[in-house]
């Protein structure tokens, strides 16, 4: 087995229990240079992915802290822990940080950045320097948002609805908006980089329909990032302009239209939901294939479903505005279109389920996260249909029902997928294995804690509990206490991985190139990969997830095994 070069399919799985890889000092992307400067000025996509991982983890912890404070306040009906104004800042900062600085960059900027070049057999992304710039933009945006936080916070909700945000709020609205605006450009540039990379840098033989589904889903995501984010930038810029110059854009007293802002905002922010969940779909496809050791059933349907979701996602923004004074006809059209988007999402879930049929199913930790995702996303997606249903939405709009729904998608979906992906590719990123049993245990704790936190919120919402309330009538307390109790379990479940993943960096067992014995180009190079990814350009002659045509000997890594698909 070569130490730095391409390890072909014939010897993938070098770390299988039978033939452990000898620990040898080898140059990889992590140890090639170790100075802080070498990290801050790196243009290696893998190092930038690690920079992102560190940055968004900080934001995740901060956003999670606000979530804890919110749940603590809501344990009692009165606003007794903090003042209502402080509470309003908590939920605003929780939303702003989690959405703009954690969820949007999460899977694309970390796993996507690390894996797209590896998966398509490229040396790097198409624009390595722009990639670094994207990270700095997120950093600068985040620092500005933190400055807004320190400078008094912001209380508009992450939605910045006008005219409250432009005329009435006396908090740090503009600073926060500038932060989100700059972070938006990070997202645009990342999307652009991925699109160009997938188009132009695929290895010989890596045709579009041989791409891993993760790449397909990130490609669809990138299209949304590129086309929708500028509209958010425009909307936020207009808010800032109206605040500064008192122009009548959204302020009705001087001729503006407050509902126009909602159209602009949701024209980005509904597609943004798909920026957050589509990459999750991609991760789940990889996990299901690897732990079923089987090609995803209906590969092209799953790939095309990603594109369909990305496109139809642009046509449904008005379903956030059924009670906004939008015309009834618009309400009917947006409701109808919203049901269409359920079709590609359901196709994915059905196909993952079908893949498990007659598979070789392993219950490793990443697979548990994938199953958690499937359960929570199914419930989250179906409750989304409640909200598309006009007669129901009029009642549950702006209540805890919608809070529960989008947390099932964003946390139960996107965060579960992110954690599953992080565990699955952790050996590739760090070269170390985490402790399996504790990772499995955590997947359970998160699943239980999550459901206990958010399921009661569906009931609360239908009972009429409005969102963004610092205090509430006492009859809602039982469900709120359940939710807060669940949040503490969820908090523990999310904290433990931080500990054991960090622990594994030093004490974890060394992972070989392919600890899962998965197929895919990223597993055919050492862990951690060398800076150049592959010592020679791989030539792909096999289809995606081609487990079946490789004999068990090949997967066990016997040196004499013959592989008909060896690269030329």
């Amino acid at each position: 087995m070569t130490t730095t070069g391409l390890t072909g399919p014939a010897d993938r799985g070098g770390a299988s229990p039978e033939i452990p890889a000898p620990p040898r000092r080898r140059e990889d992307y992590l140890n090639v240079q170790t100075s802080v400067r070498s990290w801050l000025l790196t243009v290696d996509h893998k190092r930038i992915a690690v920079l992102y991982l560190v940055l968004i983890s900080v934001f995740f912890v901060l956003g999670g802290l606000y979530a804890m404070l919110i749940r603590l306040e809501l344990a009692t009906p009165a606003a007794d822990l903090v003042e209502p104004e402080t509470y309003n800042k908590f939920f605003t900062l929780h939303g702003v940080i989690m959405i703009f600085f954690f969820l949007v960059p999460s899977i694309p900027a970390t796993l996507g950045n690390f894996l797209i070049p590896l998966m398509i057999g490229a040396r790097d992304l198409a624009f390595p320097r722009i990639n670094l710039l994207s990270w700095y933009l997120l950093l600068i945006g985040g620092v500005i948002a933190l400055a807004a936080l320190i400078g008094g916070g912001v209380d508009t909700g992450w939605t910045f609805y006008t005219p409250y945000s432009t005329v009435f709020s006396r908090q740090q609205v503009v600073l926060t908006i500038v932060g989100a605006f700059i972070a938006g450009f990070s997202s645009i540039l990342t999307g652009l980089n991925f699109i160009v990379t997938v188009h132009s840098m695929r290895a010989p033989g890596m045709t579009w329909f041989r791409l891993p589904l993760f790449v397909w889903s990130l490609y669809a995501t990138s299209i949304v990032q590129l086309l929708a984010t500028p509209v958010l930038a425009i909307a936020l810029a207009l808010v800032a302009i109206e605040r500064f110059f008192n122009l009548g854009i959204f302020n009705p007293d001087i001729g503006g239209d407050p509902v126009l802002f909602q159209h602009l905002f949701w024209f980005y922010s509904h597609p943004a939901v798909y920026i957050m969940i589509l990459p999750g779909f991609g991760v789940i496809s990889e996990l299901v294939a690897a732990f079923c050791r089987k090609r995803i059933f209906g590969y092209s349907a799953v790939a095309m479903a990603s594109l369909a979701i990305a496109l139809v996602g642009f046509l449904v923004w008005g379903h956030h505005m059924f009670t906004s004074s939008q015309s009834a006809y618009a309400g009917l059209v947006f409701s109808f279109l919203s049901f269409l988007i359920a079709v590609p999402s359901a196709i994915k879930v059905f196909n993952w389920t079908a893949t498990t049929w007659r598979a070789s199913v392993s219950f490793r930790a990443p697979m548990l996260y994938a199953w958690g995702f499937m359960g929570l996303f199914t419930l989250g997606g179906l409750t989304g249909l409640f909200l598309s249903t006009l007669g129901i939405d009029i009642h549950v709009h702006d209540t805890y029902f919608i809070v529960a729904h989008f947390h099932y998608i964003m946390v139960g979906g996107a965060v579960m997928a992110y954690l599953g992906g992080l565990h699955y590719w952790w050996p590739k990123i760090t070269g170390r294995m985490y402790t399996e049993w504790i990772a499995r245990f955590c997947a359970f704790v998160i699943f239980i804690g999550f459901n206990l936190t958010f399921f009661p919120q569906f009931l609360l919402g239908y009972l009429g509990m409005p969102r963004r309330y610092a205090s509430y009538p006492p009859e809602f307390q039982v469900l709120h206490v359940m939710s807060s109790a669940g949040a503490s379990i969820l908090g523990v479940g999310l904290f433990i991985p931080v500990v054991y993943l960090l622990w594994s960096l030093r004490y974890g067992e060394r992972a070989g190139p392919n600890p899962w014995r998965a197929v895919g180009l990223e597993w055919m190079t050492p862990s951690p990969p060398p800076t150049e990814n592959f010592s020679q350009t791989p030539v792909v002659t096999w289809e995606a997830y081609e487990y079946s045509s490789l004999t068990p000997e090949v997967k066990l890594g016997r040196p004499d095994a013959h592989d008909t698909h060896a690269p030329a």
Partner: protein
Amino acid sequence: MTARGFQLLPERASALAGRVDALYAYLWTVTAVFTLLIFLLVAYFGIKYRRRREDEPAPRPTAGSVRLELFWAMIPLVFGMSFFFWGARLYIAQYQPPDQTLDIHVIGKQWMWKAQHPSGVREINSLHVPLGRPVRLILASQDVIHSFYLPAFRTKMDAVPGRYTTMWFQPDRVGEYHIFCAEYCGTLHSGMRGALTVMEPEDYEAWLAGAPAGEPPAAAGWRLFQSLGCVTCHAAQAPSMAGLYMSEQTLADGSTVVADENYLRRSILDSTSQVVAGYQPIMPSYRGQVTEEQLAALIAYIVSLRDARAGEPSPPPPAGPDPGGLPPLRPPAPTGQREGGAR
């Protein structure tokens, strides 16, 4: 509203609430069946096809099937369409008030709801309505966007500054119900709550009679109509107010518009934006000159003349629509009226 035991559905105070709950039950049934189906399939396959040895041969791939894909694309489509049509039917019912509504003006402001009954009685953070009578709320906002939410009636509508929105409900149970502001509106958003009291019609009459009487909005509007000088022009160089409300007007560009509350509001504040054909755009704007309450009064005055013969000079309002009595018939509301008319 007292604290009750554990419950899954809020109180129902209108027939529509029951219809919404029925659809909700259907949605949860479908959701439970499919979530359970996916869960059971995954659990069954996962256990049945679990990997027994790490080196077991890889399974044979399952050939894709376009027919199967199409079949399970149809499942969400068919159920989705059933949700859509059922939900749309309810929405249209929520959208179109019946005739003979009791019209109440409600103004949202940070952080209270102010209501004015046709007789002139005013309330803050409470609303009294008679049992069985359809009530139409004409919502306005003095500052930011609010949302008037009545969980017991399963309905809500945003109060948007700069325009009128309407919602309606028909109480069928006496009691006291929550009013919430559902759209985040600033610091004391969660304090912007009130109580809706549904009373027997005779109790409502008694309550109205006992409440401190205010000037009926139509009468206040007539006074404003004179003091602001509207009366000088309207009926001479400008159209008369008689019979104007809900009539179809042809504008200078040939388009037509129904003179609903939003049209009247726009004509007062942006007076030259939609001038009726045949008149000069000479009316000054009253933006900033009248408060939300005064605007509501002016419009109430114009509404009170809906049955006056068109063409007459703008007359005083017909003698006080009996405090608490049934206001006269309103013409059926045209579609599009809930959202606030043509823009």
